């Protein structure tokens, strides 16, 4: 269209109209945001079809010898600019892979794009959907990659980790911190490494993300030890308190001897008891707050201070929870290190009340594990199962790491 804005004749394409402003792409490429009232002499020359603007030419993907299931759930890794609101929205389109992922020709992707969910909107119900999708695809493929938003990727991956009692191949979650419509996106390298991990001998649920700020190494994190530790950096994901399970570098994958290898059988226990509370203890938290948060919950995971403490003001509530047959579990809000409730008298008091000390299990993982254990194990085994190292969620040894 042609139009006049502030006495200036201009030419451009109307991209959108939002809140009374016209978003016009000028011939020089700039978008102009102008109030509808301020332009005149509009002269529409041509209407451009929507798909001409956003469409991408779609060549079929090559077929390689390695077969990997490719499951999309949404997330930055598969998101593109939303020209309506101007923000990035999840739109899954694996076509962008073709040009950008250097090792793609080695693979045949068995694609299943689930309905895209924003990572922050994912709930335990979605975990079940994802788990079923993995189950369906895994038998016919060497492994699976799952594209997922980074915000809650550790939660979903941990949930799948517990739900799959045994896996016939690796399940590798891949996210990105820079959306794939940016030349600097971390998506490409993460996918490249993720595919390699997904065709390895692993039998675990893991997360593959940049190991550092450079585009040279992808780290593979065991789901139940992973945590997003930075809101924006490429290397936001950490293997908490330990080394990554694998590294992809120079087109080569190295896997730690501690990794679990693929099993013979795929066993999915998809039941979850979602009535589990996660309580962040702090000096302002009152007994009433604690009561309100734990009411009706089958289990409560406390993020206690230090080695696993809470104020004594919460003890009566803890006792009430125990008395009604529900559980209280202790983790540390420090995130690194173990709880050890033998060291201080208050810790011992909590142990005496029946609180279960979860060693160095991450709080979020403890919560998810409790959901799994409550739904799939006999009630009387709850304590022992929580204290058993089911999927490597507890570190048997902790070393002097510098970057914790």
């Amino acid at each position, binding site marked *: 269209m042609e139009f006049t*804005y*502030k*006495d*200036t004749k201009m030419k451009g394409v109307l*991209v959108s109209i939002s809140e009374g*402003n016209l*978003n016009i*792409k*000028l*011939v*020089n*490429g*700039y*978008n*102009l*945001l*102008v*109030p509808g009232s*301020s332009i005149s002499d509009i002269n529409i020359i041509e209407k451009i079809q929507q798909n*001409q*603007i*956003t*469409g*991408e*030419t779609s060549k079929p993907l090559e077929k390689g010898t390695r077969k990997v299931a490719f499951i999309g759930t949404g997330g930055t890794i598969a998101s593109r*600019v*939303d*020209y309506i609101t*101007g*923000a*990035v929205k999840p739109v899954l389109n694996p076509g*962008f892979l073709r*040009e*950008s992922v250097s090792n793609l020709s080695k693979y045949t992707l068995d694609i299943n794009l689930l309905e895209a969910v924003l990572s922050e909107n994912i709930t335990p119900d979605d975990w079940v959907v994802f788990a079923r999708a993995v189950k369906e695809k895994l038998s016919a493929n060497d492994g699976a990659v799952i594209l997922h938003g980074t915000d809650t990727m550790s939660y979903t991956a941990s949930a799948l980790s517990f739900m799959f009692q045994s896996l016939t191949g690796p399940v590798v979650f891949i996210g990105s911190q*820079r959306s*794939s*419509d*940016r*030349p*600097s*996106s971390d998506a*490409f*390298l993460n996918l490249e490494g993720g595919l390699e991990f997904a065709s390895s001998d692993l039998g675990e649920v893991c997360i593959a993300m940049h190991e*550092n*700020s*450079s*585009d*040279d190494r992808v780290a593979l994190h065991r789901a139940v030890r992973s945590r997003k530790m930075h*809101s*924006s*950096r*490429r290397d936001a994901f950490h293997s908490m308190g330990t080394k990554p399970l694998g590294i992809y570098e120079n087109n080569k994958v190295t896997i730690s001897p501690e990794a679990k290898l693929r099993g013979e059988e795929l066993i999915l226990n998809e039941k979850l008891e979602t009535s589990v509370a996660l309580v962040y203890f702090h000096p302002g938290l009152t007994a009433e707050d604690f009561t309100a948060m734990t009411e009706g919950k089958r289990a409560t995971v406390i993020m206690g201070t230090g080695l696993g403490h809470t104020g004594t003001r919460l003890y009566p509530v803890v006792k009430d929870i125990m008395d009604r047959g529900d559980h209280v579990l202790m983790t540390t809000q420090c995130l690194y290190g173990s709880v050890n409730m033998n060291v201080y008298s208050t810790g011992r008091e909590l142990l005496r009340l029946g609180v279960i000390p979860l060693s160095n299990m991450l709080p979020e993982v403890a919560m998810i594990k409790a959901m799994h254990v409550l739904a799939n194990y006999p009630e009387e085994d709850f304590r022992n199962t929580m204290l058993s190292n089911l999927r490597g969620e507890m570190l048997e040894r902790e070393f002097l790491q510098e970057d914790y």
Partner: protein
Amino acid sequence: MSSKVMVGLEIHIQLGGRKLFCNCKTESSNETGKTVERRLIATTGESGKYDPAAVYEKSRERSFKYSLTDNSCLLELDEEPPHNINPEALRKALAMSMALNCKVVDRVSYMRKIVIDGSNTSGFQRTSIVGFNGYVETSNGPVGISTICLEEDSCRKIEEKNGVVHYSLDRLGVPLLEIATEPDIIDEDHAVETAEIIGKKLILSGWARKAPDAIRQDVNFSMGFGRVEIKGVPKLSTIRSAISYEKERQTWLAELAPKFKGTDWERIKFQDVTEMFRQTKSKVIARNLKAGMSVYGTVLPGLAGFLKNGSYKMGKELADVAKLFGSGGIMHSDELPGYGVEDELPKLQELLKPGEGDGYTIIVSTPRIIGLIEDSMKSRLKKLERMDLPETRVVSDDGSTHLLRPLPGGERMYPETDIQSIPLDAILLENAARIIPKSEEQLISELISSYGISKQDASVIISSGKAQSLKEYTGLLQNSKLATRIILQALPEMEKKTGETISETELLPLLEEAGKRKWDRQILERALDLYFVDKLPLANLLSSEMIKPLEGDELKSMIENLDSEEPVDPKNIVPRIRAKTNRPFNPADAIKLVREISQ
């Protein structure tokens, strides 16, 4: 088909202070020693198509190394989203738009301009139109200002080696005002005049960074064969020579183009001729062979006599392509024998079999690269044949220009989604209007009245862009005369002596101390000397004897001593004291004391 010359300018000015989308300073650039290595991937723009410049860049498969500096943070590393826009920079951009008679947009909305040569860690430059449709008056009538954009400056390139481009992050994100004129400029002189007029406005504003490369110009040139963008023209004189060079170049290209019609460019096929060169006398080839590279040769159909012959320089056009892929250049039949290549020629010609009118060339490269060069040469020749000249070129010091990359299209722009559009409300605009740069006359009279300096001094200070410095120095020294002297005499002298540009970051602490200690001119000049020439650290300088003035009883006893050696008189006392001590003293005091003693 040639038509009249049309020239447009893009003038880029770095604004000093803080960066555009983070809290880092624009000045200071100590490297932290850390580096990060990255790759960039060409992605599609808003309309789903790849930008030609991006596709081209991708074919070069380079990786990028970034040195972190103390004026860069996670944003420059593309590790966090942009912070809020720097309000000071926006205000200045608006004021400059007003000064150049532009309309101002209703909302500033940022775009991402895809640039995948690594000069932006994100792979794009953030840019927004602030003003448009303005003009400046010139002797040839008004030259239109099409747009004024406020953008992020790119990384500073340190070196390129083995397919890795090394950048510093110090410059990335510095606010950059881009003032683009309409192609209303008619010739070299007019271009220089227009650049001067706009440049003056910027200098008068005092907002530009005080750095050698704070102002850079691009020249858009066309004479009917499409727009050529000539990048990075540093000086006004280079504008002139770049335009002349390009005019000449397009003229002979237009002359040759019809002769190329029907040439089978596909005959260009590089063959490995390394073996012929094992015993070569060419030092440059021998050196490259030793480094494991190979020599390739091809026939150049129909190019004999056009490669380097009078005004024809097709060899250079082809060398430009080779250089982009890291090759040192080419050696072609119009200049061979030469460069120590002679004995090999018979064998070479036997292999390449150039026909009537065919030239040939050799090039040192690697198997991985030579295919890319071959493709690029062919496609370049096809373009030249049809006089399809639009491209981005870069200027050398001598004004000659070289191919840099294809001209980017509008495809390379899409909205910067991390920054919400900023409505320009009345308050913002009013604030901006209040700082519209004054005219030279206004400024001169202001300086005269504020600082009590001469019109002559004021004028020099203003046209050298030092008005802001005068204000600052006067504030520190509490003495505008002294400040003026520092600017007009002491510093230029110091720069001459050291051959270096005096940096304000170094200077200001010294002036602050000078002000606190109420140093007079002599001490200050002595101190400047010790500080910049002898590189005495500030702390040592402050405790040095050499800047302690010789005065009062001490001066008197010095004179008495001299007098006892040989009677002093007002005429010889100053040199005699100077011969005895390095310490500063007031000659007038000395003469006065001599008179007292002599009485």
